[in-house]
């Protein structure tokens, strides 16, 4: 029975190996249940989305109308472009069938007959691997017409993106699937009412859906006891930056950040101190090295610490890191990726980028620090999609927690009267 996302089993990406280890048993079990029972199981398990917002998955599924004359769709979000995030790639590579199994179960639960798996264009190699796995699963009757003879049918279409971070935002993803530019849509209406081609649609992250077979196999009670009670389950944590063993580690939610860094990722090279940690991908607020004690990888603990789980992409920075360079690079990213629809985001991200570049050059002005805060505050909450917030949070948190770093880079112009004649 598959009990984890990345079990240590050689060649698990091969369908025979997956089957030999209990793969697709959850699908059999789910198909023997009523669709509502499957949704209920997921709801009670307390599984929360792994795409960044930690939204309760079962609850999201219940937003889908039961009866509708329109087709319903599932979008599987494999756009994975948040800097510091590289975990869905690991699922594509090492355990694609747990994701496929989860997708088919989700389709059954919501009465969906077409699922689109959107994978970022840069992952061309992984698109091929996943397509192979999908073809193998179809050949065995796990996807397609009359699945396992039950009369239930659903198809899974792998769709390759073409380079645009914004297409990971769920409504931009739907527009991109429709063949449009990846512009986020104004909400409401929400996807469950008006999604792909105006039809009821659910969007879930790759890792989120990969948890579903584990829940079905073991039951919600078992699952809900893994890790942090309000945000349970196994979670894939990607650790990068200044650690000895960067990589993706599977662990229960609720593991202390320091344990992640020192036990799993082998500590900091040269035994240096930690200056700062970004705990959940580039958009999550940065934490100071001296405030990590007791902070754990779950929604509540991160919130209490003034940050967020995000995509669980932990970026570690040692004591010698130039944080101004880090925040300037992050600002450049959001400026580059802004789709340009909303003025606060389009203009604001440009301003942040430009002002922060001044600090990198040592040309910052004292009033620029407050200006940065002001620009970020004016973006936050005033845009169509959350990219605006994602651009604002890192800047706000960096100024709040590392104001001294900015002050050190202020260019103190010599007053005119002191300039020697």
């Amino acid at each position, binding site marked *: 029975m598959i009990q984890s996302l990345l079990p240590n089993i050689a060649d698990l990406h091969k369908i025979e190996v997956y089957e030999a280890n209990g793969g697709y048993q959850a699908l059999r079990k789910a198909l023997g249940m009523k669709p509502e029972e499957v949704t209920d199981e997921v709801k009670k398990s307390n599984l929360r989305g792994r795409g960044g917002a930690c939204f309760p998955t079962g609850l999201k599924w219940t937003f889908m109308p039961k009866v509708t004359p329109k087709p319903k769709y599932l979008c599987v979000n494999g756009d994975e472009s948040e800097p510091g995030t590289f975990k869905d790639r690991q699922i594509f590579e090492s355990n694609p069938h747990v994701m496929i199994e989860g997708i088919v179960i989700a389709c059954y639960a919501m009465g969906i007959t077409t699922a689109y798996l959107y994978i970022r264009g840069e992952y*061309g190699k992984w698109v091929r691997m996943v397509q192979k796995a999908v073809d193998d699963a179809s050949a065995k009757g796990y996807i397609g017409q009359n699945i396992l003879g039950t009369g239930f049918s659903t198809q899974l279409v792998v769709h390759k993106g073409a380079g645009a971070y914004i297409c990971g935002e769920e409504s931009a993803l739907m527009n991109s699937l429709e063949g449009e530019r990846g512009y986020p849509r104004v909400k409401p209406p929400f996807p469950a009412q008006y999604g792909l081609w105006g039809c009821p649609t659910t969007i879930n992250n790759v890792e989120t859906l990969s948890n579903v077979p584990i829940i079905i196999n073991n039951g919600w009670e078992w699952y809900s006891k893994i890790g942090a009670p309000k945000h349970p389950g196994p979670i894939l944590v990607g650790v990068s930056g200044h650690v000895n063993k960067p990589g993706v580690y599977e662990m229960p939610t609720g593991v202390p950040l320091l344990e992640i860094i020192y036990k799993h990722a082998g500590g900091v090279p040269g035994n240096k101190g930690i200056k700062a940690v970004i705990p959940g991908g*580039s958009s999550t607020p940065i934490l100071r090295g001296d405030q990590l004690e007791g902070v754990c990888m779950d929604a509540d603990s991160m919130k209490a610490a003034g940050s967020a789980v995000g995509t669980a992409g932990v970026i570690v920075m040692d004591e010698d890191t130039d944080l101004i*360079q880090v925040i300037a690079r992050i600002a450049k990213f959001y400026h580059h990726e802004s789709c340009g629809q909303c003025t606060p985001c389009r203009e604001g991200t440009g301003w942040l980028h430009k002002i922060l570049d001044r600090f990198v050059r040592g040309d910052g002005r004292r009033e620029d620090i407050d200006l940065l805060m002001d620009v970020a505050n004016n973006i936050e909450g005033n845009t169509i999609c959350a990219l605006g917030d994602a651009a604002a949070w890192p800047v706000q948190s960096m100024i709040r927690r590392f104001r001294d770093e900015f002050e050190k880079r202020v260019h103190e112009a010599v007053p005119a009267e002191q300039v020697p004649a």
Partner: protein
Amino acid sequence: MLSEASLQKIEELKTKYPTTQAMTLPVLWMVQEEHGFISPEAMKYVADLLKVSYGHVFGVVTFYTMYNARKIGKHHIEVCTNVSCMLRGSGKIVEHLEHRLGIKMGETSRDGTWTLSEVECMGSCGTAPMCAVGEEYYENLNPEKVDSVLNKLQ
């Protein structure tokens, strides 16, 4: 413009999407795979094929960074300079590449062999620094490894 094999694939794709417009991205990928870039003629061709406007196709090509509206070098080297890579020395990799190839970021070598681009996070942060050449990822780079990649591709 497109090979028989691609045209056949397009017929298959029609069963997977309710509109032809939804096939814009997949069909543009086919064009780029066969021709290396997407010319104005190719955009016109795709527009006719999918019964959408030229403006629509142009808009899509220019929105997504991976579509090349212009011819680029035989080998496209894309170096990630985002945070995780930066922390592990992507700056040195960029410097080394520029030096070795004699071109700056965003340029194509005179003989048309190399195009060098700076890109955003490629999902390889745990194996940083990295670069991609086409679909291939080269990870845990250092200057020596860059040299061996270049020698292999030449």
